[in-house]
């Protein structure tokens, strides 16, 4: 109740001086919410900024891959976090079909790769180098993998090419695919109790950094073409013999019709730009401080006026 009234007053107050050139439609702007905290808070932050701009905003929970089809159809208006690694393929596929536009990158970069929680380093001090990891392979063995180490990769549909890399670099690891992000966390959580060494797929920015400090494994540095040309990278006969790019993009995307229907909101969306520390802070408010996402967004906006004030028209 309270939240609604404040938002409403904020909305009306902001609307008053703007009404002269507020050509935005009264229809609500639909913002998608996925199932990880930084995205939820960021979407709420953007939603509240747009409400200050006088737009009506609604949130809808969607799958993070299926959302691109919804954006294309205009059912969802925008998407705040398009990760190069995780959603690049879905995004590009939707771009090809038409209906979705690229609204520019955040300053924040994304990284996805093999990762281990800090306690692993006690057992295998040579880390983060991948050769050192390979020498410790036996530490990561499980009942099923025999004397080879187990690397827990992301779900198969994330297309992380863990298997190809193990083969290309001749590593003593067996790749097992988790079925969901939750499954990855459960494995790390189980390993945490007795500080069992573990190496899993992970990415940044996300909440895990705050809960389990850790590092990415340093593979041979990414070179363009490593996924297309066997000659690139240390193994001349294999693809995927490099680590993933350490600075993948994080884009904003919008429905094609947004610019016409809500020009002023679209203008703000173009200016919106978050950095890694800002995103980490948003995630922390929910994951560590246990705030509800809407409340976390309010807190973040209050504390960071300098960041977003200039984005408003």
């Amino acid at each position, binding site marked *: 109740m309270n939240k609604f009234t404040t938002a409403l007053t904020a909305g009306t107050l902001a609307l008053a001086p703007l009404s002269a050139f507020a050509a935005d439609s009264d229809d609500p702007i639909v913002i998608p919410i996925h199932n990880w905290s930084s995205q939820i808070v960021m979407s709420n932050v953007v939603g509240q900024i747009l409400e200050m701009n006088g737009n009506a905003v609604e949130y809808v929970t969607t*799958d993070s891959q*299926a959302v691109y089809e919804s954006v294309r*159809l205009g059912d969802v208006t925008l998407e705040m976090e398009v990760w190069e690694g995780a959603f690049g393929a879905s995004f590009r596929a939707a771009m090809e079909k038409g209906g979705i536009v690229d609204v520019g990158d955040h300053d924040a970069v994304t990284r996805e790769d093999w990762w281990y929680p800090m306690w692993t380093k006690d057992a295998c001090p040579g880390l983060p180098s991948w050769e050192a990891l390979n020498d410790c392979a036996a530490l990561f063995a499980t009942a099923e993998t025999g004397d080879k180490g187990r690397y827990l990769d992301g779900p198969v549909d994330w297309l992380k090419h863990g298997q190809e890399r193990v083969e290309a670099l001749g590593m003593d690891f067996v790749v097992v695919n988790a079925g969901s*992000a939750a499954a990855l966390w459960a494995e790390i959580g189980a390993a945490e109790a007795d500080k069992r060494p573990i190496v899993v797929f992970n990415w940044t920015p996300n909440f895990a950094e705050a809960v389990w400090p850790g590092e990415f494994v340093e593979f041979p540095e990414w070179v363009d073409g490593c996924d297309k040309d066997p000659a690139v990278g240390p193994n001349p006969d294999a693809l995927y013999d490099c680590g993933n790019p350490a600075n993948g993009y994080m884009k904003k995307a919008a429905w094609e019709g947004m610019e016409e229907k809500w020009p002023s909101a679209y203008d703000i969306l173009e200016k919106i730009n978050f950095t890694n520390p800002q995103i980490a802070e948003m995630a922390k408010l929910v994951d560590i401080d246990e705030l509800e996402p809407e409340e976390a967004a309010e807190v973040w906006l209050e504390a960071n006026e300098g960041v977003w004030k200039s984005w408003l028209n």
Partner: protein
Amino acid sequence: MTAATTTLPSSPRSFSNAQIALAFVAVAVVLTILQYIGLLPAWMHRLPEAIIPNFASVLDTVFNFVKDDLGLLALTRFLTEGLEWLLDFSANIFFGKRRFPNIGPIPWTAMAAVASVIGYYLGGWRLALLGGGTMVWTALIGQWEIAMQTMSVLAIAAPLAFVIGLSLGIAAWKYAWVDKAIKPILSVLQTLPFFTYLLPAVIFFKVGPTAGAVATTIYAIPPMILMTTLGLKKVSPEVVEAGKMSGCTKAQMLRHVYIPSARTEILVGVNQVIMLSLAMVVLTAFIGMPGLGAKLLAMMGSFKLGRSFEIGITIVLLAVMLDRMSKAWVIKQPEHFERGTPLWKKHSMLLLGLGLFIGFTLLSLVVPFLAEVGRGQDFSQGKELDNLIKAFLNIEWVKATTGFLRAFLNVQVLIPFRNFMLSIPTPAFILLVAAFAFALAGRREAIYALVFFSLVALSGWWDRAIITLYSVISAVSLAALIGLPIGILASRSKKWSERVLLVCDTAQTFPSFVYLIPAIMLFGITDVAVIFSILVFAMVPLTRYTIEGLRNVPEEMTEAADMSGAKRFQKLWSVQLPIALPTMAVGFNQAIMFAFFMVIIAAFIGTQDLGQELQRTLAGTDLGKNFVLGICVSLMALTFDLTIMKWAADKKRMLGLQ
């Protein structure tokens, strides 16, 4: 192939079912042995890629044609707008979404009061306590708003399923051709994995509560149709005669004679609709259904075991409350008052409910806590529960047990079993399934089995289908090993039967997602975790039907056994179990259906089966592939369903139980 020609004579009628089944098995064994010694040509082991028709792209073309060229999308999008209006309306009432009629949200205290009054009206103090208690728990634990988001969609989806199901049920009862057309569709619908409902729902009905409501409705319709038809068919001729004699028109007959007489079955259908709708709460969160499910997925995504556990409890409480209330409604007979009873007395409960509702609404204007439990005022114990669960998973003997199970069950039993199933040549496997159907049910079921499994082979997803089947078979076998003894023990006394049945109810409504994480923490991302999560679910019907079967053995029979001096074990083995067996078979069948349902969810742990591929199609717009995969699961489940149900029906007839 030579084996087949020598053992299969031209006229199979002269052989018994068992002999033919045996012949099938023999051929299958020969083929498998040939495969093991390396003499089987590759094309006999697996269908060559080249002859596998591309069903997916054909289906895609058909879908696109129907969707765009025939204008189905335009039609459904038009319907979506109407549905959205309804959903917005209920959303405003339940949690105050800013839409017409702008009067919500209802204070939680007022809702709790109304729930108590309804509970009291239907079933006395116990239900009043359950109704009110559930609402108070939900509010105090800080989940009021998300729970109401869920309820606002269910409040539209469940009645919609009721109306559609009732109409179709009446149509199927009235016109034989509708019945004939609807039956196979219903069978497929009931075995189709839910992921197959989700994608079309999104495409045709827009991501969000609308798609969630549509998927829920479709999922909940089948039992309503079946129960309506069943109830109407059972109306006794005397009642019909009486209606005709009093000169009823056709419409009056339906309204005043048939439907009131079929009241019990129809209300059982309502109960089923409610329970299935609640089962979809978490699953529809994947397509934008707001509320408890979405929150649960978000909590799981950030490893908050305690909070997700609390949400699970809320869902169970809501389900138990609605289940008990609707069951009480089934039993409660309409009240009749003497002529001249004052109006207020006839409607005393309605007035009480209304009075309390208005009272609490007014009171909450003065005391905000009674309207909404604010931030930080709730009593959630998320962090404490987190630590409790983690501490439990970290106890030495728990870890030792699971470690042993993981090493033994997975490495020694499950993985070899899976590899064996994968090594069986496709034709041999199809023959084995057909032999199973032949031996248990008969020729018709065997032909179905042959056709269905051949279609699965033709779909090109054979290996994944076999892995799916492997999970189902392993989980159901293990569930039988645990569930049957529990059922047999519990059936000895009424008290224990009731207790175990309550546990079954709870286990069935507790969202399966919640125990996926503990399963992984216990067993790692292995087949054991997958099987474990299916097993928990599949054990429920096995135990339930064992108890019901054993407790319904006619008393004359057990007494006769006692008189002839049978020992307890003898009585169980030679009298009770044989008579309960058909009922237990129904439980076994349901366990298999549940297992097919859960195995798809288990893809979230990490599997290599059809569920994993299905989950993958959700990401894109692969409607064709999504449908092919769904049908594969459905065909396999249907084969077992048809066979076991036929067997149970035959057995019941033989025992003279029906």
